[in-house]
């Protein structure tokens, strides 16, 4: 880990959480809280977008129940930072899977620090921070599935990843190739020998 402190943006409506996390981070060093927000209003979205945070720690309680499973991707739309959940109420396991790490309010200070470090490691291998312009091996696999007409849900099940990760991969594939339509991606896959033409149709 580099000498410069990793910047953290905290989104929680709870003062106890905000002060508690700040206290733990002060003791251990390596991390510094840059900004604390109490919700993700439109105004605060801009703050997240403009922030240089390395990690966003969020209490998923700020998302209403219906939109909670989408919470992680709402933050990922704004920033490439790792996203760690710090739920104050009993978390929904499915939704927690989308986060790079989950901090429990019962974790020891050492466990919190180690989870934050992990989140950075996970996140650097994830599609969000992949700045190389060539398609990654995983993106190629997913592109082939798209070209074969598979739905996002089917792709998620095959690779044991969340549907949001599939969507992120697809966004990145389109951003890199400039190709938006499924038919166009099929042309790409065939021209680049990602698919054996004999297996199509």
């Amino acid at each position, binding site marked *: 880990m580099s000498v410069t402190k990793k910047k953290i943006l905290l989104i929680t409506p709870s003062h106890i959480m905000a002060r508690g996390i700040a206290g733990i981070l002060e003791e251990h060093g390596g991390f510094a809280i840059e900004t604390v927000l109490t919700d993700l209003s439109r105004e605060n979205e801009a703050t997240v977008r403009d922030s240089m945070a390395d990690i966003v720690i969020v209490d998923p309680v700020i998302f209403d129940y219906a939109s909670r499973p989408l919470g992680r991707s709402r933050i990922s739309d704004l920033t490439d930072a790792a996203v760690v959940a710090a739920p104050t109420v009993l978390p929904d396991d499915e939704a927690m899977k989308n986060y790079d790490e989950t901090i429990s309010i019962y974790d020891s200070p050492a466990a919190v620090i180690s989870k934050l470090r992990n989140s950075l490691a996970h996140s650097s291998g994830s599609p969000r921070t992949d700045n190389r312009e060539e398609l990654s091996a995983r993106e190629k696999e997913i592109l082939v599935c798209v070209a074969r007409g598979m739905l996002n849900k089917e792709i998620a099940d095959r690779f044991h990843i969340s549907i949001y990760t599939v969507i992120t991969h697809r966004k990145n594939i389109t951003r890199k190739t400039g190709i938006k339509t499924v*038919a166009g991606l099929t042309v790409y896959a*065939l*021209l680049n020998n990602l698919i054996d033409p004999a297996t199509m149709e």
Partner: protein
Amino acid sequence: MRKNMKMADLVGADYRLLTVIYRLGIKLGFGEKTVEETCRESGVNCDTFLLIANVYATEGYVPTTEMMTAASAIDLVRYLHASHSYYLDHEIQDLSRIFEDLLSPCTPMQRDVIMRFFDGYREEVENHFAYEEDIVFPYVRSVAGGQRVEGYSMETFEENHNNIDEKLNDLRNIVMKYLPPVCDTVTAIRALSRLCTLEADLEKHTLIENSILIPMVNRLEGKCQ
């Protein structure tokens, strides 16, 4: 942009207007005549021509109420119809020939894959145009004649007027980025410049439908009742 400008000056300043005047039925050879004179001789409503020319010349152009009232919905529909024929019979035909040429050194698999995509695009465009030709334009003609048709309105058209630019955009990226290296570069450039021209012109075409045809017919619908 004024009616007493020389037509040659107007077209000379923006060559995209060449295909516009063609689609309106105005022939070249207008010499020193003004925009108004040229339009009158070709039987074209001069205000309609200026509306269309303004969409080409000005980014984000919003016509004034006077402009909209002065122009003719019938002429506009005639222009849009001529545009459809121009795209299908000239631009897409030509592109199809250029692609045949471009892909001739490729393997049959590569040729098939790209031509099938091209044909898919052509089919999408044909369907999009056919809906407008069969449903929308007859409706506009009857509303312009003061007759409201039951069961259809410009609002329905507005809601269903989808974009058909995605596949064209994909095609441009495929030719630019992923064409097999055996293809001839000069032919590829020819294909690309035609694709770009078509893409830009279709964008103006959609703009004319959305920002002129729809508000114009909305106004006429009000008059019918």
